[in-house]
C-alpha cells in the first residue's frame, strides 16, 4: 500500500482542467464518461418528466403536439446514446484494465478522443431545440419519409451528431477489444475472464458490426434530403420500408449492446453477495455469444405490421422466440448462484436482485411480443413502451447503478452511505414499477405510443404512471448526493471492499492508484 502510493506520487495526474482535457488515463476517462452519462441521464430524464406531465390528464395542458414529439425523440436518443451507452463505456474503461491486470487501455490517446467527441455531438444535438422549426420530431427510430421529406431543417444537425456518436462508439469498441485480447496478465486465459469483461468483448464486436450500418442509414437520409437521391422516397422509386430494414439491422443488436454489459455487471455482483461462485460460468459465456449471434437475424420483429411476406413473418417469429432460450439460461444461472448461498443485501445486491426480477418481466413481455399474430395487437402501443422500459430502466439502468455502488469504494477509496443507498434503491424500485407497470394495461387496452393526448378510458393509469415517474426521477438526486458525499467524506474502504469479492481489481488498494498493474500480476 505504502509503496504503491509512493510510486503514484511522482506519476500522479496533472492539476486543473488540463488533467481532464489531455488525459489518457483509463480511470480519468472512465470518470469522465460516467459523469457525462449521468448528466445526460438527468437531461433525458427531465424530458421524460415533461412528457409524463403532459400525459397526466387528457387534453393538452403544458406543451403542444409538435414539441411533445421533439421531447419523445430527444428523450429516446439521449437516453440510448447519451446515458446508457457511455455509462457502460465508462465502467469498461475503469474496470476492464483492472480486471484483466493491464496497466491501461491498449490505445490511450484514441480513448481520450472517443470520449471528447461526445460532448460536442450532444451539444450539437441539443442545440437543435433552439433552431427554427425545432428539434427532430420523428421519434428516436426516425422512420423515413417522416425524417427526410417531412423533417424539420435541424435533421441535418441530427445526422451529423449521430455520425459523431457512432465514431466515438466504434473507437471505444476497438479499444476494448484490443485491451482484452492483448493486455491480459499472464495466466488470464479467456475462460478465466470475469464475466463483465466477456460480455463487453462480445458487445464491442456488436458495436463494430452495426454502428457503420447506422452511419450508412443516416448518410442515405442525408443524400435524400440534400442531394436529390430517392433511397426512401417512393415518388422517386425508393422504398420507405428499406429504411426500417437497415435501421433495425442496426437497432436490434443495439438493444443487446445496451443489455449484455448489464448481464456482465450482475454476474459480478450476485456471486460476491451470495458468497458463492457464479453457477455455470461457461454456459454464461456461450449464452451471451448466442444472444449476440441471434441478434443479427431477428430485426424484422420490429416490423411485423409493415406487410412482410408470410414466410418472413414466420422466420422472424421463430428466431425471436429462440432468443428466450439463452436469456432464460442466464436468469436460471443467476438464481442457481443465489440458491444455497450466504446472501447479504447491500445496495449493489438490491439493485442486482431487482434487475433479475424486473428484467425477466421485461423478457416475458418480449416473448409475448415475439408471437407475430399477437404482436399485431401489441405493436406500437404502450405495451411495447412498458416492455422496453422494463428491460432498459430496471434492466440496463439498474445494472449501471448496481455497478456504480459496487465499484465506487474501489474508485474513490470510500464507502457510500449504505442507508442512503437503500433509500435510493427502494424509491427507485417502487417508482419504476408505478411508472411502467400500468403501461402494460393501457397498452393492452389500446393506447398507441407517441401520442400527446388520449381518449378518456386511459386517464387513470396515465395519472398513476406520471406520479411514479416523478418519484423515480427525483429519487436519482439521492444517488447524486450519495456519490458526492462518498467522494468527499465517506468511510475509508479496504482493498477487498466486500467480504465476498474475488478478482484482480480487489487486490489493488482502495482507491485504486492512478497507475495500476504497471507490472503484470500473476493469475493462478
Amino acid at each position: 500500500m505504502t509503496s504503491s502510493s509512493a510510486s503514484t506520487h511522482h506519476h500522479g495526474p496533472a492539476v486543473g482542467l488540463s488533467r481532464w482535457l489531455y488525459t489518457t488515463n483509463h480511470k480519468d476517462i472512465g470518470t469522465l464518461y460516467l459523469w457525462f452519462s449521468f448528466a445526460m441521464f438527468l437531461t433525458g430524464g427531465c424530458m421524460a418528466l415533461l412528457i409524463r406531465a403532459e400525459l397526466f390528464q387528457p387534453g393538452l395542458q403544458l406543451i403542444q403536439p409538435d414539441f411533445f414529439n421533439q421531447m419523445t425523440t430527444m428523450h429516446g436518443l439521449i437516453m440510448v446514446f447519451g446515458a446508457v451507452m457511455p455509462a457502460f463505456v465508462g465502467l469498461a474503461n475503469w474496470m476492464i484494465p483492472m480486471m484483466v491486470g493491464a496497466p491501461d487501455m491498449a490505445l490511450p490517446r484514441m480513448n481520450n478522443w472517443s470520449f471528447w467527441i461526445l460532448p460536442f455531438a450532444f451539444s450539437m444535438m441539443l442545440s437543435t431545440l433552439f433552431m427554427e422549426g425545432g428539434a427532430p420530431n420523428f421519434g428516436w427510430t426516425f422512420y423515413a419519409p417522416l425524417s427526410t421529406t417531412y423533417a424539420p431543417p435541424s435533421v441535418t444537425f441530427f445526422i451529423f451528431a449521430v455520425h459523431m456518436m457512432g465514431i466515438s462508439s466504434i473507437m471505444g469498441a476497438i479499444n476494448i477489444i484490443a485491451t482484452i485480447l492483448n493486455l491480459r496478465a499472464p495466466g488470464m486465459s479467456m475462460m478465466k475472464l470475469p464475466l463483465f469483461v466477456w460480455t463487453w468483448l462480445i458487445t464491442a464486436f456488436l458495436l463494430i458490426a452495426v454502428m457503420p450500418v447506422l452511419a450508412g442509414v443516416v448518410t442515405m437520409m442525408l443524400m435524400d434530403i440534400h442531394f436529390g437521391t430517392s433511397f426512401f422516397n417512393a415518388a422517386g422509386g425508393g422504398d420507405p420500408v428499406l429504411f426500417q430494414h437497415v435501421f433495425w439491422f442496426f437497432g436490434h443488436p443495439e438493444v443487446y449492446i445496451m443489455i449484455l454489459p448489464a448481464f456482465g455487471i450482475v454476474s459480478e455482483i450476485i456471486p460476491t453477495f451470495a458468497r458463492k461462485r457464479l453457477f455455470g460460468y461457461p454456459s454464461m459465456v456461450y449464452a451471451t455469444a448466442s444472444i449476440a449471434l441471434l441478434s443479427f437475424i431477428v430485426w424484422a420483429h420490429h416490423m411485423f405490421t409493415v406487410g412482410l411476406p408470410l414466410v418472413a413473418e414466420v422466420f422472424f417469429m421463430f428466431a425471436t422466440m429462440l432468443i428466450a432460450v439463452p436469456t432464460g439460461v442466464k436468469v436460471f444461472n443467476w438464481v442457481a448462484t443465489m440458491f444455497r448461498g450466504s446472501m447479504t443485501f447491500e445496495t449493489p445486491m438490491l439493485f442486482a436482485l431487482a434487475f433479475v426480477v424486473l428484467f425477466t418481466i421485461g423478457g416475458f413481455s418480449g416473448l409475448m411480443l415475439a408471437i407475430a399474430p399477437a404482436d399485431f395487437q401489441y405493436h406500437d402501443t404502450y405495451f411495447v413502451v412498458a416492455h422496453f422500459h422494463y428491460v432498459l430502466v430496471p434492466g440496463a439502468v439498474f445494472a449501471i447503478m448496481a455497478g456504480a455502488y459496487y465499484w465506487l469504494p474501489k474508485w474513490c477509496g470510500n464507502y457510500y452511505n449504505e442507508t442512503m443507498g437503500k433509500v435510493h434503491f427502494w424509491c427507485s424500485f417502487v417508482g419504476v414499477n408505478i411508472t411502467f407497470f400500468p403501461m402494460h394495461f393501457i397498452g393492452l387496452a389500446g393506447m398507441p405510443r407517441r401520442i400527446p393526448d388520449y381518449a378518456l378510458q386511459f386517464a387513470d393509469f396515465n395519472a398513476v404512471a406520471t406520479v411514479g415517474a416523478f418519484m423515480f426521477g427525483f429519487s436519482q438526486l439521492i444517488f447524486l448526493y450519495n456519490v458526492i458525499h462518498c467522494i468527499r467524506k465517506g468511510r475509508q474502504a479496504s482493498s477487498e471492499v466486500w467480504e465476498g469479492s474475488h478478482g484482480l481489481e480487489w487486490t489493488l488498494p482502495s482507491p485504486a492508484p492512478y497507475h495500476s498493474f504497471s507490472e503484470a500480476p500473476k493469475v493462478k
Partner: protein
Amino acid sequence: MKRVIFGLAVLLVTASPSHADWTMNLTRGVTDISREIYDLHMVIFWICVVIGVLVFGVMLWSVVYHRKSRGAKAKNFHESLLVEITWTIVPFIILIGMAVPATATLIKMYDNTEADIDIQVTGYQWKWRYQYLAENVDFFSSLSTPREQINNTQEKTTDYLLEVDNPLVIPVGKKVRFLLTANDVIHSWWVPEFAVKKDAIPGFINEAWVIVDKPGVYRGQCAELCGKEHGFMPIVVEVKTVAEYESWLAEVKQADAKQQQAAMKSWNLADLMAMGEEVYNKACLACHQAEGEGIPGAFPALKNSPVALGEVSVHIDVVLNGKPGTAMQAYKEQLSAVELAAVITYERNAWGNKTGDIVTPAQIAELKE
C-alpha cells in the same frame, strides 16, 4: 422482497376493472381472428406467469432462507451439466408448443383471397381516405372532436378523440378486404376489435381483411408516428346489416350528386367566407394555425403571405395540387369544388388579407375535370 410483492399486489387490486369503460386486458374483439389472437395472448401470458412463479419462487426462497443473517453457509457447487441441459431443452419445447398455433393463426390472417368488398384505405397527414372500389364511393374521414375540448375550454365527451366526421361503413358477415397505402408518410390503420393493424406506406399496397360478426361502432387510432397530429387521426368503423349498408351506399351517392349541383349555383362572398372558415378549421388549421400565422420553420404563414395576396391562379394551384417535397398536400381530391372555392376565398380575405377576390365553385369544378 416481501414488501415488493405486496406493493405489486396492491397495485393490481386497486387497478381492478371496476370502472365502467376501461379495461386492463386485450379485447376479445368481434372477429374469429381477433378471438384466436386473444387466446394466443392469454396462453403465452399464463406460460409466462407459471415460469415467473417458479423462477421468482426459487429466488424468493433463497433470499429468505439462504441469507447470511440466518446463518446460511454458502455451498460450493457451481456447475451441473444435467441441470444446464434441462433448462435449455425444456424452454425450447415450450416455445415450439407456442409457435405452432401462432403460425396457424398467421396463415389464416394472410389469406387475402375471395373478398366480397374491397376498400382502399389511404393515410394522409392527418386523416383517412376510404374508397369503395366497386361502388364509386370515396370520402375522407377526420377527427370531429372540437378543438375546444382538446384545449380544455369545453368539457370532454365520451368519445373524446375517438370520433370522426365520416365513419367507414361496412356490412356484417361479409369479407371486407382493405388495401392500405399512404399519401405522405407512413401511417398504421388499427382497429383493436378487428385485430387489424397494418401499416399504410407510400408507394406500397398492403392487404388486410375482416369478417365482422356483430353490428356496432368500433373505434381505433393511427398507430405509427406520422407527425404533429398523429394522436388526432382516429378510425371509426360502423358495422351495419347488409340492408342498412345498401341504403347507406345509396344515400352517400345521392349526397355526392347534390354536392356537384351545388357547385353550379352562384355564391356570394359572405357565404363563401362562412363555409371557408369551417373548411379551414377542418383541413388547414393544424398546420397553418388559427390566425393563419403558421409555425415558423415548419409551416408557412398564410397571413400576409405572397401566395394568399398574390396571383389567384398560383394560390389555387398550391391548394389543389400541393407542393411536392413538403407537407403541403394536394386537396383536389380531398375537398369538393365548393369547399375548395370557399377555403381559398377565405384565405384571401381573412386575418387582414383583404384582396376582395372571390373564387367560385364553378371555376374550381372546371379545373377538377
